[in-house]
């Protein structure tokens, strides 16, 4: 009820898109991969800005299907009014979990670094368990991890420990800090080694600052308080670093957390300064190229490659720097497979009740990949790569690995 006559005193142009900015155009609903795949999910418009009007800090307004939002953020990418659609849903999911409590599984899945530490310490055993059918049946029954979802392999030698013994380059032109993330540290050290090799080849010394999990696994498992703690820790470690150098990340979603979500979703003070200096590694290398500083002495890489652009990369708002870079390499035949979300969305497609939905979302991409018959599928995001491999049997790589190969690091 309006009790006072509205008298504007200032002429402010609203900068931050709010729920009021939603024009109900439904663009978000047409691109939502979950709404496309199940009729239980009412779509981002209804669960985001529409329901937001009925939510309060005291009440979560948890509605059926709310937990089916996978957090791909395509709704936000698509919104012509820049409404933070997914953030409304995310906050409601988090509020719901705070009221109802979290399952053991979601508690564990939100702690990727803890899992990584345990997994790499016990690497042969963990990998045996994760691929053992009987163990997987038990894991499904008691933890809620779908038995058919391949889990990432852990490695005994972490990236951190590898890097400690890595010799420093002589006379570098500049320095950059590498946010390697849990994936590179515990599951894919070789990607990190190649990132270092590519950067060093271009005269850049890599610094590995102290770091915590970026926090996105906690965010997507409705534990924003935990994510905020991780974020605060990272901001504390990285703030002095960005005084001297930029940060690069080789994981799409880690990069997005540092750039955007620390400030926007988690309200971490001081995070803007870190975010402003953070670049996706391919974005950074493309900037080097445009500055005339990228070494273009590539070896021929005779490969037919398919590029899948991860949803979270679209949220970076930087276009597809990987495609631009790889087109510079002689011999590379590169095509984009433009079939939208792969469906895994981090830990979403790992869960027993969401596995089938996740595979259904990805089915269009899988069919396109199978029909294209390329040598390898490229994606900047590690869980996209896991999903494409699982759904198609194709091999996958980070685009950086092709660049490394062109520099002679097979």
């Amino acid at each position, binding site marked *: 009820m309006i009790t006072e006559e509205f008298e504007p005193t200032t002429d402010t142009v609203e900068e931050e898109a709010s729920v009021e900015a939603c024009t109900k155009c439904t663009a978000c609903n047409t691109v939502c991969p979950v709404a496309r795949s199940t009729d239980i999910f009412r779509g981002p418009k209804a669960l985001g800005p529409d329901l937001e009007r009925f939510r309060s800090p005291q009440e979560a307004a948890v509605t059926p299907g709310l937990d089916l939002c996978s957090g791909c953020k395509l709704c936000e990418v698509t919104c012509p009014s*820049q409404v933070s659609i997914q953030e409304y849903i995310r906050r409601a999911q988090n509020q719901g979990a705070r009221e109802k409590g979290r399952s053991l599984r979601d508690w564990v899945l939100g702690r990727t670094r803890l899992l990584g530490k345990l997994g790499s310490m016990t690497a042969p055993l963990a990998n045996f368990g994760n691929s053992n059918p009987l163990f997987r049946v038990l894991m499904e029954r008691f933890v809620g991890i779908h038995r058919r979802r391949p889990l990432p392999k852990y490695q005994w030698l972490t990236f951190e420990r590898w890097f400690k013994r890595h010799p420093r380059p002589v006379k570098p032109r500049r320095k950059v800090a590498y946010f390697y993330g849990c994936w590179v540290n515990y599951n894919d050290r070789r990607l990190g080694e190649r990132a270092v090799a590519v950067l060093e080849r271009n005269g850049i010394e890599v610094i590995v600052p102290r770091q915590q999990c970026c926090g996105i696994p906690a965010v997507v498992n409705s534990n924003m308080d935990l994510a905020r703690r991780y974020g605060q820790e990272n901001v504390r470690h990285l703030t002095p670093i960005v005084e001297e150098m930029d940060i690069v990340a080789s994981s799409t979603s880690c990069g997005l957390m540092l750039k955007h979500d620390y400030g926007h979703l988690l309200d971490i003070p001081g995070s803007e300064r870190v975010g402003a200096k953070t670049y996706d590694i391919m974005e950074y290398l493309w900037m080097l190229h445009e500055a005339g500083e990228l070494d273009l002495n590539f070896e021929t890489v005779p490969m037919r490659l398919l590029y899948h652009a991860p949803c979270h990369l679209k949220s*970076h708002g930087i276009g597809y720097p990987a495609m631009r870079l790889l087109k510079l390499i002689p011999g590379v035949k590169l095509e984009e497979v433009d079939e939208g979300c792969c469906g895994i969305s981090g830990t979403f497609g790992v869960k027993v009740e969401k596995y089938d939905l996740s595979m259904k979302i990805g089915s269009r991409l899988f069919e396109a990949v199978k029909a294209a018959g390329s040598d390898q599928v490229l994606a900047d995001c590690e869980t996209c790569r896991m999903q494409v491999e699982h759904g198609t049997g194709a091999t996958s790589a980070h685009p950086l690995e092709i660049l490394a190969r062109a520099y002679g690091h097979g």
Partner: protein
Amino acid sequence: MKTDVAVIGTGLAALAAARTVQQSGRRVVLVWPGLSSLYFLYATVDVIGYPTATAADPIAHPAQAVARLIAQEPSHPYARAGMKAVEAGIALMLEWFKEAGLAWEGTLDRNFLLPTATGTPKPCCLAPASMTAGDLSRPDPIVLCGFTGYQDFAPEFAAANLARQWRTAEVSAVRITAPGYGPDRHFTSIDLARSFEDAAFRDAVAAQLRERVTSQGARVGIPGVLGLTNPSESFAAFQRAVGHPVFEIPTVPPSVIALRLFDRLRKHLQEAGIEIIWAAPAHAADVTDGRCRNVLLKAAGHELPVEAESYVVALEDWVDGAFRAGVHTVRDPFFHQPIAWSNVPTDRTAESLFATQPFEQVGYALTERLQPADENGTPLARNVFCAGGAMAGYDPSGTKSRGGMAIATGYRAAQEALAA
């Protein structure tokens, strides 16, 4: 990032500009603030439907009407683009539609008169082939078909309206049940369109229609939901199964017909290696010595500079974020200039919903070459060119001229950008 021409916007003006640059062989990058105007403003390309917003009689010959308008109103966006740009722009788009595999029909020499979802006859110049059997210059009776539970198309309402305005032949309405769409399910056109990709679903709907539509020679009007990714095939199969000519009627958003156009053209550009930067609205321009050095996009965390030889600002209306209105002023995202609100009456809206709306007139004042200009007519930047809804006095709603104006100005702005 660097390119020859950066086109900012998502509508037909932006797409026509991008295509023009692409055909010239120069590099082009598209900057999209979100999936917007094309997606909810266009199911057809309207060149000119009425001579004025209040005229009762639709225009039959768009080319002649545009030529008359150009002669009469030198500041009209069509006059600024020029007749050559109208013709060349439409030809460019028709050729592009064909190359991209979109089945569209129409020429500048005639208008179709097609029924809308509310049963109003609407003049339009180019339309998808799946719509043209609805042309009201044909005398065949019409059966409008709706789906039970589908809120965005009421066949009885549309049929009553159409019967009142079009007295040539009989109009009737039927409602059928779409398999799987029970009373408890909330659904929109996009859900139906996805279901129509499935042959069994299509056949089940067609079987009901075959049974319900009995009058000889009748044609069936159905909401525009007949398939999404491969509409020509879905449509042909459906029409065969119904046994009557079928035509689609565009719906309120989500407009599947507009979405097909948008998706196909977007993919076609991307297949040709043209990059689209999503989710990064332009919010500032660096102008030094009268030249735009770069446009800054609001990417995650930091600004992304797009450095081009020239720029086409093809933002449509308010929906694309071309302008932001404060309580007293309107600002643009590039030059942060207060926009010519002053040549508009203080009231932003007209009393009648259907009258010419003052807020629609807002936009950049322009030079002869479509450069945004200050009040003295000096370009704000030599290498920035303007198309579509960001132009002052651009008001396509009343005269039904949105697509034509977008394409003509987009084409012309791109030509100027290439010459800059």
